[in-house]
């Protein structure tokens, strides 16, 4: 269904017409929740040729639990992400969503909009937005799935950004979903900011434990254009945890881990222009903040002993969600197929990839309905 005459506003209920409209009318501005765009419009800084509303596309909203992964639609709202079922499996994501704005803002603000915020609408530089959800997605090793009319593209979330933090989406490209490895362990998110608003926080930190691979991933944000994973801290920690007993024998482990995380702030990876509202934060303050947050997050996720039971609980809940997902979707008439081209087979595994690391995009041609069963 090609769109011939320019439209002022379009609110498709399926993905295909949305990407077709974007291809046909490149000046359409994608609007998910509108919580970033409307601030600009109210301030007289945005005059769109037209809006493409993506808030009524069931394929883009919701969470799919499959055997290998969790897939979250890009237009899933922050309020959706704080749902108890999701909090039980992906607590860091729920905590990060919960820390955005107020409840009424979260009813509309979306995950995709958060990651795509700070698009240079009229070109030229703009202050970087918070993108708080990004820190957690980076710690989780998420892959963003993007779609133009003809192609799918999958890229580790950090690869959505240029070196200076600008969003790198191709013309007519929509983010459709985020794919995460199935979370089955303790997680935490922390944020220090001067205000609850859209300005940049001083620090965001996400910690993700994966007991099955015995890995601890930690990402910190707020200091540079894109949050960074501090893998050396996780690697060091791996050998200092008694995974069999569910314990951390040496109490000094917490402090050393925290110091290693804070050192991540100094890594060359993180160099770049700091965001507008935190440029006055002294480095030393941010370093201390990172240390305190990292220590607390680790104590909460892996206390000195007795967390094996907790790990089992996470596994049971994840198993449960997997079992329920397809049945409940069928029952409620929700789309069975997530907005992704198929299982990831290419070399897109993210662990070890730094925030500004090499991009490993894979482009897969979309065939008609994107290769999915109707």
């Amino acid at each position: 269904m090609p769109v011939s005459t320019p439209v002022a506003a379009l609110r498709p209920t399926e993905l295909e017409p949305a990407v077709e409209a974007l291809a046909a009318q490149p000046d359409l501005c994608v609007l998910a929740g509108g919580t970033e765009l409307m601030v600009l419009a109210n301030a007289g800084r945005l005059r769109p040729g037209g809006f493409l509303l993506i808030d009524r596309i069931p394929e883009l909203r919701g969470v799919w639990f499959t055997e290998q992964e969790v897939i979250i639609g890009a237009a899933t709202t922050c309020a959706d992400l704080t749902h108890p079922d999701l909090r039980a499996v992906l607590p860091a994501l729920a905590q990060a969503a919960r820390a955005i704005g107020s409840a009424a803002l979260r009813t509309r603000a979306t995950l995709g909009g958060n990651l795509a915020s700070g698009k240079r609408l009229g070109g030229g530089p703009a202050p970087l937005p918070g993108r708080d959800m990004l820190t957690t997605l980076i710690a989780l090793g998420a892959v963003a799935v993007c779609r133009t009319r003809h192609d799918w593209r999958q890229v580790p979330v950090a690869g959505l950004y240029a070196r200076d933090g600008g969003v790198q989406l191709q013309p007519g490209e929509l983010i459709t979903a985020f794919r995460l490895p199935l979370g089955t362990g303790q997680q935490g998110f922390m944020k220090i900011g001067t205000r609850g608003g859209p300005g940049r926080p001083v620090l965001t930190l996400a910690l993700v434990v994966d007991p099955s691979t015995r890995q601890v991933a930690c990402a910190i944000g707020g200091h540079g254009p894109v949050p960074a994973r501090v893998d050396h801290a996780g690697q060091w920690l791996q050998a200092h945890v008694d995974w069999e007993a569910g314990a951390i024998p040496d109490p000094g482990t917490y402090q050393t881990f925290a110091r290693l995380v804070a050192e991540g702030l100094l890594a060359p990876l993180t160099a770049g222009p700091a965001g507008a509202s935190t440029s006055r934060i002294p480095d030393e303050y941010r370093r201390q903040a990172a240390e305190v947050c990292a220590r607390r997050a680790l104590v909460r996720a892996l206390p000195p002993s007795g967390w094996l039971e907790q790990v089992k609980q996470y596994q049971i809940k994840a198993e449960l969600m997997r079992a329920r997902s397809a049945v409940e979707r069928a029952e409620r008439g929700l789309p069975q197929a997530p907005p992704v081209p198929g299982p990831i087979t290419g070399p897109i595994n993210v662990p070890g990839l730094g925030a500004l690391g090499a991009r490993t995009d894979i482009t897969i041609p979309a065939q008609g309905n994107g290769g999915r069963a109707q």
Partner: protein
Amino acid sequence: MSEAHDFDQYDFLSADSSNELEIDPLAGSGTYTVVSSLPSQVQHAAEAVAGPPIPPASGPFATVSIRCTVNGEPVEVPEVWVADSLLFVLRDRLGRTAAKDGCGEGECGACLVLLDGEPVLGCLTPALVAEGSSVTTPEAYGDGDEVSGALAAHCGAGCGYCLPGIGLTTRALLARQPEPSEAAIRESLSGHLCRCLPPGHFIDAVNEAAQAVKRRG
């Protein structure tokens, strides 16, 4: 000391005093602090958020016509600019002025309305999102109910600007949780800024409204 220096100092002081961070009076969890929305601040914040002006697209403003129901009454509004907020359309096109225009950037909650029963910020919701939906504004409770009664009794000393939004949030809360804990009350009111009253008044009001609703059964 040069004049410029004096000016800098003055600027710094005035910015600093209006910049004073205060704990959101209604945010119990203390997750983060909010800034009171003084005009200078709003402008400052808008700049921080928005950056340099974005050149408008050429050509005329893109407009649409919108049909929805407002407090149960079907309405049609022609020629709505696609980026007009729901709040603007309600207040300036339809004369429903109970939802207030506070900050226009999502911080204060004065503009809260219900869209298909869900609380949303009128200032950050494009009007065209309401197409085919039902909107509830504070006018729906114009005759007064337990919530307005309790707010009038406990928060009458303030200017009242924040109350319509707080009223809707309270009704949504009580519909979900007829006997909310203090933590739940603080959490749900944390998106509303009040410049006149301390939080205790609102907590008392919500508790009283909850009891009154319960008595009515």
